[in-house]
């Protein structure tokens, strides 16, 4: 057995974390087992199903294909973090209203992937994605329950709502999003969110 362990420091959902981990420990196992962040799920452990999707320095990654030691010095965000910050509250609300989840096991990963699509299109000024584009983007996230249509509906509804609200959003936030830094919670207060389909 390989005994290599390493001390790492990183930020997880805005909190500083210092832990010693075995080199072989995957990021999702580290999050779930060491930090108790069980919202990221383990479905296939080979990067296919997407249930373990988390954000590493602002980009979605497979938590099962990323080693915890690779995240030293990085910023990790999980479903718990983006839920508490309110960043995806409109998506979550749309998923609930549209019943875009059944068992819910894929949902944290699905939401993070959907948020990546919408945020990137917002940044690039690409407009509302087509249903085909939404389907293509979410094709790395396996859902056995819904058949995907409700998920596509929910994401499409939020895309329309966000881009409709775009003109009225504070300039500061737009600029920071372009710079890749999500706005702080207090900056976000009062931000209009009209995600209901």
């Amino acid at each position, binding site marked *: 057995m390989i005994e290599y362990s390493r001390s790492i420091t990183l930020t997880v959902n805005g909190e500083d974390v210092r832990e010693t981990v075995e080199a072989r420990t995957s990021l999702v196992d580290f999050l779930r087992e060491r930090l108790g962040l069980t919202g990221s799920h383990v479905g296939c*452990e*080979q990067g296919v199903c997407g*249930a373990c999707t988390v954000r590493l320095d602002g980009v979605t990654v497979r938590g099962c294909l990323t080693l915890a030691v690779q995240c030293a010095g990085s910023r990790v965000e999980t479903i718990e973090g983006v839920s508490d910050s309110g960043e995806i509250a409109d998506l979550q609300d749309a998923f609930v209203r549209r019943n875009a989840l059944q068992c819910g*096991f894929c949902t944290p990963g699905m939401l993070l992937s959907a948020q990546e699509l919408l945020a990137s299109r917002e940044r690039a000024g690409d407009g509302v994605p087509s249903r085909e584009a939404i389907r293509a983007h979410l094709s790395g996230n396996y859902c056995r329950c819904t*058949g995907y249509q409700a998920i596509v509906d929910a994401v499409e509804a939020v895309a329309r709502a966000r881009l409709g609200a775009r003109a009225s959003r504070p300039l500061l936030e737009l600029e920071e999003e372009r710079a890749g830094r999500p706005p702080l919670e207090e900056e976000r207060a009062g931000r209009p969110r009209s995600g209901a389909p």
Partner: protein
Amino acid sequence: MKITPDLPSELTALDRPNSYIGRAVPRPNLARLTQGRGQYVSDVTLPRMAHVAFVRSPYAHARIKSIDAAAAKVASGVIAVVTGAELAKIITPWVGVLTHLKGIKSAPQHAIAVDVARWQGEAVAAVVARTRAEAEDARALVNVDYEELPAVTDAETALDPATPVIHAALGDNLCFERRHEAGDPDGGFAAADEIVETTFVFGRHTGVTNEPRAIVADWNPGDERLTVYQGTQAPHMMQNLFAKHLGLEEHQVRVLTKDVGGSFGIKVHTYADEMATVALSKLLRRPVKFVADRSESFVTDIHARDHRVRAKIGVTRDGAITAWEIDDLTGIGPYSVYPRTSGIEANQVVNLVGGPYTCPNYRALARVVFQNKNVMCQYRAVGHPIATHVTESLVELAAAHIGVDPLELRRRNLIPDDAYPAQGPSGIRFEKLSHHETLAHLDAMMNYAGLRAEQTRLRAQGIYRGIGFASFVEVTNPSAAFYGIGGARISAQDGATVRLDATGAVFCHTGVTEQGQGAEAVIAQCVASSFGVPIERVRVITGDTDNVPYGGGTWASRAAGIGGEAAWQAGKALRANVLAVAGQVLQAEPKSLDIRGSIVVDRADGRERIGLDEIARIAYFRPDTLPPGFQAELVATRHYVPKAWPFAFTNGIQASHVEVDIETGRVTLLNHWCVEDCGTVINPQLVDEQVRGGVVQGLGAALFEKCEYDARGQLLNGTMADYLVPLAAEMPDIEVGHVVSPTADSELGAKGAGEAGTAGATGAVANAVNDALRVLGAREITEVPITPEAVLRAVGRG
């Protein structure tokens, strides 16, 4: 607990004030799941919890000559290494048979294989360690000496005298056989102008639940109780089985099921490795956790289908179906799965073939054989996809032979909507179905005539589109006829207990379970409506054998129709109890009162009299102000089981619209429609989503999903990278419509909807692909999944 007689109620589910029945109420448990706050079994950790990893046979059939665990036992973190013989002292083996499946036989199955491993993936030893990683490390150090034995893999030759017998004590490899003959099949075929005969092949596939099977077993010798956290569909069934095979009383076992990451029939069976985990907890006197990793899921989660059906239909030139005949052969692995058996699916195929049609002349043979592959058992829509695909492909083949439009042939042969009660060719009985109305609805919804015109137009451009249909019936709301009469302790009834809390909110404890289908919402809708409170005032408790009424759980599309009715009746009973208190407080006749929006009102004019919070305050804290001798009863329980009909059959029809690229063989799903009739629709959004999710599982079977085995019984594609599942990009939007024929067997009139989508989708796609290619003179494709290679072969390019 006092049982109060129901109010003599003239109100029905649909006309009660402020009813939630028929409304798309969002599910109460969804918000936390979107926030990553679910409580799946894979999330559970307990003090002193150990983890088990299983050593699994790499051979499909092998004698276990010796197991050397010396190195593993001293590896870091290891608590124990346990063999099958050692664990057999803790847990007894089981045999998956039911008495009403005449002649079914199977062999004793152990939690861990003893002496012989009979499929690739069967556990042969368990390694328990402080962490899963340490258990897996030590697993690699267990040295098992195997003698490989000849593997029986081909179902076609499993019964040949030259084929080795897997269980010598059984004498042969036949698990179950059923023959059925009804009407006059020979006369029917003799009267036919055309007889179409073909052979259908249905690939093995599996459930691929997003959360793999997971269990945490906690034997506490201090209070002599076993607590099991398990992702299961049937907690009370599992309570019984754990107790039975560990030598415990049922009350010593508590099964807890919170969030389950997908079930679909995968999690309603007894799994040897889960039984082993429970036994290991008892042996080691501490909690033990097992979560299957995906590679284990592929070789141990039950597989499904794997049928070869020779089938024949007779039809007259003017479009009357005259006879049906099938010969079904299915391979189920080395054991009939406990306790529901692996004979049920073939039995269902015999029951369901020809089900929607009037033609009574039917001959069927079904044989279920053992083989050295993973076990096969009931998965969503048990038997329906096979029977529907066979029936509906025969119908479309017959239509093509006599040159009649496939919808028109159905119109001429489907049981008329005014002919009920009626029965199918196998003798299955239908209370009220609506084949013609659903067909008419579908015809309009999809603009069939327009699509046919477009199809013709596009063919001229070298674009091959096809339209295929599948009418179906679906078994829902089963009575004891399914399992109970066969000796299985699987409850057909379900109970609901409703209690008023001290602020006027209600708790409903139900025996049905939430697998993601929306049972909690449906139960809350029923209670809120029949009792009379806003739905936010209802909290639903499921999945705890210590704290819910005894019940069957979730399978066979029963949760809404059976659990919902029990909850509806319990809400009514509690309303009567509460109005008895209100009658005392208000000095009014309880029958003159009602509860609406959490307020006791005059039934006649809705005038508000007193709030439920005030009733609860008086009853709980100031009962001294009630008349002497009056006792408030603020809990009510009701049970329900269908009585008039053994099953509440539903019906519907699906259509698939595909485009086939004859250069690449690729099939693109353009549209899919389903019109179904599940009786009263309690929550239209949830019904639609059950249909859509079910359709997509059928689409996966039609085009992608197959467990590929080689001749030695090795699974060749047991990873999610190799086994193809439907993903968002390949799936079409699915339009769902409804016709409503309530069952008179319950007050709500709701039937099940969970399996309708899966029942018809595969056959509809196969018919659509063949419809696209028939113009090219292609050979009929009768095997699923329909791969690009199969398409190219059919058009002579493969």
